[in-house]
């Protein structure tokens, strides 16, 4: 298959224009690619965070194939936009994208989580080209992004920093330390994207420790806030294009992406226990068919036998 590459750059950032239907179709196709590869990789590990990836598949697709200024095959290019993941447990969906961009050999994916593999459940910058910062401990990434934006300003390096945060991550105090810091230092090149899928490992985010009103919180911390349907690639890409093109903004920017955990697989959408789980081969086949049919929001059928794993301890 001919890889669908990153948008050729430099694009005219002063007037990026809206995404075309053709571009949107490709972003949807790359989101399906992320979901299919996630299923394939987790079948190697026998347990993984399907639903955490499925909620942000369109975010991965839009950032890597439309928004970010990156160069195929050059993961260390100093001028690249940076992408950090607070929700590092979604790395299984990021790795196929990095391989697709020729940042490392695609064959690495086949050994996902096997002894000595650079690819594990969380991204490691020392092992994986294209990972701009390691993660796994929730709550650090926005601070890492603050540092990158500060460093870029001092070094006069011209790049944007995108940080994908989980909505459960909003419960970590350090996120709000970083939020204060970014606003104080007027880091206009820092963009946080909150994957607002509503669920964390133990259940509903707002039952466990309520984070709403989330947009108001970010505004109160001095950020420019946007809300968007995180599965609508047209809305997402257009918003990110506008944000990236705006070089007059002095505030950091937060996008609250309303998403569905497990998006694309009906029983994952309705069962929060799928934060961590494993699809039996027959279920995996049906999940794959659902995704390939492009029937992202359709009910895929009944008779699911795979158990949902509801805590790390049973993995």
């Amino acid at each position, binding site marked *: 298959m001919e890889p669908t590459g990153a948008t050729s750059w430099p694009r005219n950032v002063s007037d990026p224009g809206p995404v075309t239907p053709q571009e949107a179709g490709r972003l949807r196709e790359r989101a399906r690619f992320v979901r299919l590869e996630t299923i394939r990789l987790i079948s190697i590990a026998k347990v993984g965070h399907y639903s955490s990836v499925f909620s942000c598949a369109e975010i991965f697709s839009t950032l890597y194939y439309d928004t970010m200024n990156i160069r195929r095959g050059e993961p260390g290019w100093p001028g690249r936009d940076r992408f950090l993941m607070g929700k590092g447990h979604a790395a299984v969906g990021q790795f196929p994208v990095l391989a697709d961009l020729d940042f490392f050999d695609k064959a690495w994916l086949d050994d996902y989580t096997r002894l000595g593999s650079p690819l594990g459940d969380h991204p490691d910058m020392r092992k994986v080209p294209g990972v701009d*910062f390691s993660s796994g401990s929730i709550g650090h990434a926005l*601070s890492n992004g*603050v*540092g990158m934006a*500060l*460093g870029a300003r001092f070094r006069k390096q011209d790049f944007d920093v995108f940080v994908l945060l989980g909505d459960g991550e909003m419960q970590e*105090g*350090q996120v709000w330390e970083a939020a204060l*810091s970014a606003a104080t230092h007027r880091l206009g090149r820092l963009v946080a994207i909150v994957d607002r899928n509503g669920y964390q490992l133990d259940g509903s985010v707002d039952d466990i420790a309520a984070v709403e009103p989330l947009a108001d919180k970010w505004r109160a911390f001095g950020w420019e806030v946007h809300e968007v349907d995180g599965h609508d690639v047209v809305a997402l890409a257009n918003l990110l294009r506008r944000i990236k093109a705006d070089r007059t903004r002095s505030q950091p920017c937060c996008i609250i992406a309303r998403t569905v955990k497990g998006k694309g697989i009906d029983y994952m959408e309705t069962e929060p226990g799928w934060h961590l789980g494993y699809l039996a081969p027959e279920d995996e086949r049906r999940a794959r068919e659902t995704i390939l049919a492009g029937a992202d929001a359709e009910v895929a059928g009944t008779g699911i036998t795979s158990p949902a794993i509801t805590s790390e301890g049973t993995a």
Partner: protein
Amino acid sequence: MNSTLHPDSWQYRELNKRAPSLSVLSDTLIELAEAGHPVVAGTADLQHSNGLTGFAGRFPERFTQFGISEQNMVSAAAGMATTGVIPYVATFASFLALLCCEQIRMDVAYCAQPVRLIGHHTGISMGFYGTSHHATEDIAIMRSIADLTVVSPADGPQFAAALRASVDYPQPIYFRISRGHDPEVYARDTPFEFGKAVIHELGRDLTIIATGMPVHPARTAMRALQEEGYSVGLIDMHTIKPLDRAAVMQAAKTSRVILTVEEHNVLGGLGGAVAEVLAEEGGGARLVRHGIRDEFSLIARPTHLYRHYRLDAKGVEEIARPLVA
């Protein structure tokens, strides 16, 4: 030196400006920045305590005030380092090494970023501010983090030399600094090498291995015992990790007794590190560990605490005397 003033008083400090190691921090960073090194600095609401005010005034674009958010500061420093700068971030050791332990492990050490962490006012040097402000666990915690170098300079000149050496050092470093106005052991521009202990002397009866602030009182104690005819030596183990195992073994093969002295819990600190070497390598010397014996320190002025815990010259001598007699 004005002998009528109490060493804890600000007047004493004003009158005895003997290269306090925390003005050394700012002065040396200014020197490094002026020499063209990409050094930046940050603190968490303690620029007056650690003296970074001087650096901030001279190079405002290189200085970041993070406010009271130490964890954010450490993670951000690691992020900054990816852009090619060398960040020096400073706050009380109790907050840096304990509150930010996980950020240091994950973002600095695991990510191999050349961040220089300056934990100042370590040990019991915060005196009556109490246990929240003491750090008698930081060596033990920091030295168990892979790929992190742990350095505990004896005085200002050694700290300055270590800072100069740090611009070319590839790994992240945790610096452990005591009060910032400790008596000097070394002359300015004394050479410094990470991981290479300073062997002052080796004694047949006893060799003291000290780190940080206690090196000076240990040297005084050594001289007092030498005047009485005992063969006593001193090793300044400024780098606790990687530990200079060869220096420990030199002492083990020369001396009947090794006495470790540290402003830290005897568990897991310098004493623990030396014990590990002796247990693995043999050598025959008996080991005695001196420091805080697994307790939370009392409240008092620092000098009174050093006296109480026998971390002043007289105290080290008291601990050492029965070992040589």
